[in-house]
């Protein structure tokens, strides 16, 4: 789609349009580069989210079985013991991550401090913390996938608008103005020729 921009047919306007086209091309190239990188980030994160989700689905059953085993072995008091052997609980830190200008929520887990207890309980604690940190990572990645998706859409619209509307319209207008100036020049030449021949006839 390209229609002409309504401009005054002057040389200064032609220069202005050429400058604007150069700027538009520059922005287009940069945005296209950014779009390519963003799409790749998006795809990488999708693959990573899929992998982590599979790992979580695999590990969650193991942790559940371990918890059931501990409950069967030591009774419900094991959870009180679990609590009392925790010196400092694990913390979740929530903040922002900036992926090429795309602001996305991120979270990371800071592991707490614990006293060593029964080997089974230590193992269970280790596995459950790993599982929780994986779930947090999955949440972080899925959040970034959402924000990246929105940004990719926006950037794509801009790139397409520049590629299919703005730059062709500017090019068409520049071409129109150039043709108009050439036409004017030809008219001028023809006029001069006619004046010259009239003057010669007049002298003769």
């Amino acid at each position, binding site marked *: 789609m390209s229609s002409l921009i309504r401009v005054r047919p002057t040389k200064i306007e032609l220069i202005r349009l050429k400058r604007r086209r150069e700027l538009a091309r520059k922005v287009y190239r940069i945005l296209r*580069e950014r779009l390519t990188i963003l799409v790749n980030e998006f795809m*990488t994160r999708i693959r990573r989210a899929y992998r982590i989700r599979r790992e979580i689905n695999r590990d969650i059953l193991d942790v559940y079985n371990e918890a059931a085993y501990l409950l069967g072995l030591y009774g419900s008091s094991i959870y009180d013991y679990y609590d009392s052997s925790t010196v400092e609980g694990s913390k979740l830190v929530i903040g922002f*991550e*900036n992926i090429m*200008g795309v602001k996305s929520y991120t979270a990371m887990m800071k592991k707490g401090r614990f006293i060593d207890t029964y080997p089974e309980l230590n193992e269970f604690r280790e596995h459950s913390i790993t599982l929780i940190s994986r779930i947090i990572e999955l949440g972080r990645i899925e959040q970034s996938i959402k924000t990246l998706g929105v940004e990719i859409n926006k950037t794509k619209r801009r790139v397409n608008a520049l590629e299919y509307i703005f730059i062709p319209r500017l090019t068409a207008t520049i071409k129109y103005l150039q043709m108009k100036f050439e036409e004017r020049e030809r008219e001028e030449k023809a006029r001069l020729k006619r004046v010259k021949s009239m003057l010669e006839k007049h002298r003769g």
Partner: protein
Amino acid sequence: MGLRDTYFEDLVTRVLTRELRIINRHLPYKRVSLCDLEKMDIPYIILRDGTTHLIDPRELEYLSNLLGGEKCKLLLPIIIEARESLGEGTYIVRDRVAKRVIAEILELEYEEEKPLIIYRPHLYKIREILSTTTTIIFSPT
């Protein structure tokens, strides 16, 4: 040419100029060394737009193991430059220590004096490993 058209054209030019201006908003206000980041309880850097960017401690650990004694010389995030004049899909790393990191990850050879040139598949690999400790700068020249 109507007043409305002029206004629209100026607006488009302004939007394009703004786009160029804000494209590098995600760059850090000040780069921080790897040692300083490791000392922080929650490693973060402040960006030009005023927001904070959390850094994954696992990446810091990875870089620390990779660099050994030279780790305090590495400034983070590692800046990868996308320069228009080099053509599409070509990127530059200028920082000396960062060059070493990138070259070791990608198993490339590099010269100390010259900037390291990498290509798009390399960039994807780097971003996969160091997603919070690298950033890309878009240079329109």
